[in-house]
């Protein structure tokens, strides 16, 4: 894929803690084409948020990127100096935060928060400071209308606490989209919302993606969301990618036992007699993990050779899986 907007190769992000070296992201590789929507799924602690904090250059001490490369539109981001990184953030890569309740600054009106981003990044604004502000305000209004805030003119000068949760999530998307970024990273954009609002927000992101032609990375733990909105999906477990490929294929015939387990643990309206099967055990501690299959202790198909280093292997149709015995106990039932 030559027109990839974002290409991560063998990324390793570690946290040097008192208890030892925590490898939160271990050898993650993925790529994202222009206009593509990529879903990243995995349970809490699987490293999905840290992966994209690495992309944004927002990994805080004691964390650091140990090795690997993050290529954004031909530019290498690992080791980029802070000044250039700052110009990139918000302008070309934007990110929405997990919790819309606290992601807006309570001290400013929403228009102010959008205008600030525009004034910081948008070079098309011209004229005096005042004229720029006026133009930015006009754009802020358009953004709020774009994300579907009713009577946006009157809401422009409201403070975040005057908005409901869903509206706040929309405002946050409006801020992220203000500079028309090439890549939007949406970190669990719907976790705090109820189901109807979830659908609206996701439709909105899909809609704007088409309009602006941007690429979207949807970080979530909801496979339903992925099935509905994403072209491709990456499944992460304990800091590693365990399976990736086109969404439809991965969900229809999951190859990795973890993906299969995830799909089996979702309740289904069409088959109420089926028991939900939880995946037994918990995610391993990420400190000083041995080079074996990380899912081994929870896997029903574990065997002696699982103790070796397991690499990603192709399994046809643009899919890859990190398992020595993929596919068995196929997922056709789900």
């Amino acid at each position, binding site marked *: 894929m030559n027109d990839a907007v974002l290409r991560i190769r063998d990324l390793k992000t570690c946290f040097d803690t008192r208890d030892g070296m925590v490898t939160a992201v271990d050898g993650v590789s993925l790529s994202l084409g222009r206009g593509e929507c990529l879903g990243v799924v995995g349970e809490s602690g699987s490293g999905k948020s840290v992966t994209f904090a690495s992309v*944004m250059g*927002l990994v805080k*001490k004691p964390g650091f990127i140990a090795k690997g490369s993050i290529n954004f539109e031909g530019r290498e981001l690992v080791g980029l100096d802070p000044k250039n990184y*700052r*110009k*990139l*953030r*918000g*302008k070309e890569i*934007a*990110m*929405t*935060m*997990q*919790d819309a309740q*606290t*992601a*807006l*600054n*309570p*001290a*400013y*009106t929403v228009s102010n928060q959008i205008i*600030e*981003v525009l004034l*910081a*990044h948008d070079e098309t604004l011209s004229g005096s400071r005042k004229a720029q502000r006026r133009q930015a305000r006009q754009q802020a209004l358009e953004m709020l209308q774009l994300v579907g805030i009713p*009577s946006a003119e*009157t809401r422009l*000068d*409201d*403070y975040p*606490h*005057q*908005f*409901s949760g869903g509206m706040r999530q929309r405002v*946050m998307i409006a*801020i*992220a989209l203000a500079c028309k970024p090439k890549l939007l990273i949406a970190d669990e954009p719907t976790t705090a919302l109820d189901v109807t609002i979830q659908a609206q927000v996701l439709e909105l992101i899909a809609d704007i993606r088409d309009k602006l032609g941007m690429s979207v990375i949807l970080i979530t733990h909801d496979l339903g969301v992925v099935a509905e909105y994403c072209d491709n999906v990456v499944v992460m477990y304990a800091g590693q990618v365990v399976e990736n490929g086109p969404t439809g294929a991965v969900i229809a015939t999951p190859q990795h036992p973890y993906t299969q387990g995830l799909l089996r643990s979702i309740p289904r309206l069409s088959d109420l007699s089926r028991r939900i099967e939880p995946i037994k055990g918990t995610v391993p501690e990420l400190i000083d993990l041995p080079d074996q299959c990380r899912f081994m202790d929870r896997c029903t198909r574990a065997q002696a050779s699982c103790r070796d280093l397991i690499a990603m292997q192709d399994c046809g149709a643009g899919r890859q899986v990190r398992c020595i015995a993929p596919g068995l106990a196929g997922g056709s039932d789900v």
Partner: protein
Amino acid sequence: MTTVTHWTGDAGTAKSETLFQRNMKLFASNRLSIFFLFITLGFVFMAVAAPLIAPHDPSDADLFRRLLPPAWMEGGDWSFPLGCDALGRDILSRIIYGSRVSIFIGATVILVATTIGVLAGLAAGYLRGWVDIVISRLVDILLGFPYLIFAIALIAMTGPGLQNIVLALAYKEWVIPCRVVRGETLATSGVEYVEAARAMGASRSDIMLREILPNILSPVLVVSTVRMAHVIILEASLSFLGLGVQPPMASWGSMVADGRSFMLQEWWLSTFPGLAILLLVLSINVVSQGLRDAFDPRFHD
């Protein structure tokens, strides 16, 4: 309190109101604080308009009026309502002029100390690393000295005078807002909107001054009013010890000191300036208490 209901209600028609404005309204509904706020403002007015309201020149000595008692006592004179001191100067006029010293020093020290303290606290709390280590250790060292003795030592080196008192007190006073701001900044810098601002490409100074600062102003406001009362007492203490403003300038602390040797017979020499200190400090404390009640979310209930 039920004041919370009106802003969660109809968002479409609710007037735009920041948390700060809401808290100020809460403060305004506290009658006791408002009453003492007016007394405090009365003192400020007294200080500003001293030449207009003082009945006499505060330095006008006349030994014929030496130790004149207050007007309502035997031998008193209504043109000198609170009596005269050992040099025959009008005590009321000296109290009015003395408020200038107390309020000027209180306000200036707090202004200087809060500005420095807020900036240092933001830097320490947000930048962390060696900046934090340097500032926090400096704060610890300064906190190790007893306040008054530290001020006395500094004034002993620089000599008394208005400017030197302000400097001597501000040297140590800034550590208090600094510690408050550092703690608040540590707590606030983990909040999502700060992270979001970073993700949108805000610079470090933008984040400190535009994202964090507006959200931690409330505790700063409360702390600086409480500390202002302390600074006024400290100034009075320094003046009492003769290290404050120099005669013939009137200061409450030095008036109390001057009246010390007459305490048993001519009690009014020390009592009235003492009461002035008491009333001003009490008023400021009640106001700051009211501010804290209004701004501390634990009291919103």
